[in-house]
């Protein structure tokens, strides 16, 4: 893929969204020896949207993220960020992109403010704008009162907020979030979700890898379900759920002895099921006829979710 002069001008002037996707991957393959981590990946992320990359560990999400920053080079295929082919123009692309890595790599010896300031140099924020950029990042992360705290003294949630603020210090047009809330407690996770929602509202393009179903459902305009290095399906979470899992799922404790018979019966009637131990979950349960429901006994009803979709499509669990 080549970058047109027009796209370069657009990148310089930060013009509003263009018809081309902010992030584009075409037939991308990445191998590590005999292992194919990413296997013919096609993905477009429209400008100004949040795309959730959902899949279990080992699905190829982090490798995909690394390829977008040219820290991992694709063996085949084409990648472009805001029209800049990667890796050929990766520095240009990275200047327009903020990255929040999965691994915490903050400088322990520096304070919160110093961590942010040091990255204003790396991102080439003009000298006269550095102080304002740091203040803005502190404000976004709600760390103004911790500006002089050494990083090693911060809680896990604060560190993660600082990592996100560091990725936003140069006001990027595209943000890559690699498992942004992994290992955080629910309250901190909620706080970070607020920040990601704010980015979406501001028109920043976000590509977020996660293996948390709720996170992907809540935050993403679209999710791409990833397994074994490929995108299995993509779409709006609600659309995917409606298409593959219906409105509700009912879980029946049928026991190990009867589970195979019930599965066969339900499959014959056109229903999709998934096993969780000795329990059987029936997708599109709202369509279950009373005759089948009588055979299943009493069940527990819940709303369908992306996990149901993922299991239906891949046979794998996300978490």
């Amino acid at each position, binding site marked *: 893929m080549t970058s047109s002069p027009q796209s*370069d001008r657009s990148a*310089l002037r*930060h013009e509003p969204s263009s018809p081309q996707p902010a992030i584009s991957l075409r037939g991308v393959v990445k191998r*590590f020896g005999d292992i194919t981590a990413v296997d013919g990946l096609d993905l477009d992320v429209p400008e100004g949207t949040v795309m959730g990359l959902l899949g279990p560990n080992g699905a190829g999400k982090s490798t995909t993220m*690394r390829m977008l920053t*040219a*820290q*991992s*080079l694709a063996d085949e295929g084409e990648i472009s960020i805001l029209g800049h082919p990667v890796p050929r*123009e*990766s*520095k*240009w692309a*990275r*200047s*327009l992109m903020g*990255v929040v*890595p999965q*691994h*915490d*790599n903050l*400088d*322990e*010896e*520096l304070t919160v403010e*110093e961590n942010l*300031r*040091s*990255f*204003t*140099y*790396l*991102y*080439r*924020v*003009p000298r006269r704008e550095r102080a*304002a950029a740091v203040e*803005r990042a502190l*404000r*976004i*992360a*709600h760390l103004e009162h911790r500006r002089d705290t050494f990083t090693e003294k911060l809680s896990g949630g604060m560190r993660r*907020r600082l990592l996100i603020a*560091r*990725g*936003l*210090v*140069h*006001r*990027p*047009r595209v943000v890559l979030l690699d498992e942004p809330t992994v290992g955080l407690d629910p309250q901190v996770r909620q706080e*970070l979700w*607020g*920040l990601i929602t*704010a*980015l979406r*509202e*501001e*028109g*920043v393009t976000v590509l977020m890898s996660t293996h948390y179903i709720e996170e992907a459902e809540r935050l993403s305009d679209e999710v791409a379900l990833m397994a074994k290095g490929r995108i299995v399906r993509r779409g709006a979470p609600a659309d995917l759920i409606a298409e593959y899992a219906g409105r509700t799922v009912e879980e029946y404790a049928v026991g190990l002895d009867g589970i195979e018979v019930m599965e066969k019966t339900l499959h014959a009637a056109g229903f999709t099921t998934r096993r969780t131990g000795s329990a059987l979950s029936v997708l599109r349960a709202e369509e279950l006829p009373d005759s089948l429901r009588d055979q299943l006994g009493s069940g527990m009803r819940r709303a369908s979710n992306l996990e149901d979709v993922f299991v239906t499509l891949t046979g794998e669990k996300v978490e």
Partner: protein
Amino acid sequence: MTATRDTAAPAATDLRTRPRGFEIAPILGVLAREWALYRRIWAPITFSAIVEPVLYLLAFGMGMGALVGTIGGYDYIEFLGTGIVAMSVLFSSMFPGLIDTFVRRRFQHTYEGVLAAPVDVRELVTGEALWIALKAGVYGCAPLLVAIGFGLEPTWAMLLVPFVGVLTGFGFALLGILLAAVIPSIRTVDYVISGLITPLFLVAGTFFPIDQLPGWAQTAALVNPLYHCVELVRGFAFGIDVLAALGHLAVIALFAVVVWFLAVHLMRRRLID
């Protein structure tokens, strides 16, 4: 956290020039980041970088000096002081190049963060080595100042010593970075210290003239960049032919260029998969 309109504003990073190729701006960025770190941790680094070579100088200079007397017509402490400048440069550059780089690469994931910004591996390696070299150039002067305190006559040419220290330090910092990209674990550092760093400063004319060594060791000294650093510093103190000085300088510069290419190549293999 709550929504903020700040993120919608035009990007602060409105680069004036299209980033491509090898650039100065990212190197300055790396240096600025190092400066921020150094302001926090300068005291122990400076203490160790200055005190250790000065202790060597005092212990050997006064202890051995009483036995040796003079070498080539110069007091032993003057001879040693000029030699230990090179040792100080070696220690101040090779150790951080090797250990800090390994720790940042392997344990702190620092370079993942840096390379996510508009910085490439060449600029990262150059910036890291240059920062280490600048420190080595400054720290390397401490033994010379102590030797002056013990009677070494100052010369104008000595003002060139920091520059020689920076160039030599640049090469050895890159050698450390190169090795940090190669060694499989932090324990392997011991092999480098005993198998490489110690012979480097022993076979460099630091403590005694190399013509006291067997022929093979003298040949080894001639390809040892530290020997050429010692000769330059000693020459600036006691007098040196310009052509000879340029020759020593050329060897050090060639060494720096070769290890730069190797360090960049090997670090790229480690950092980019």
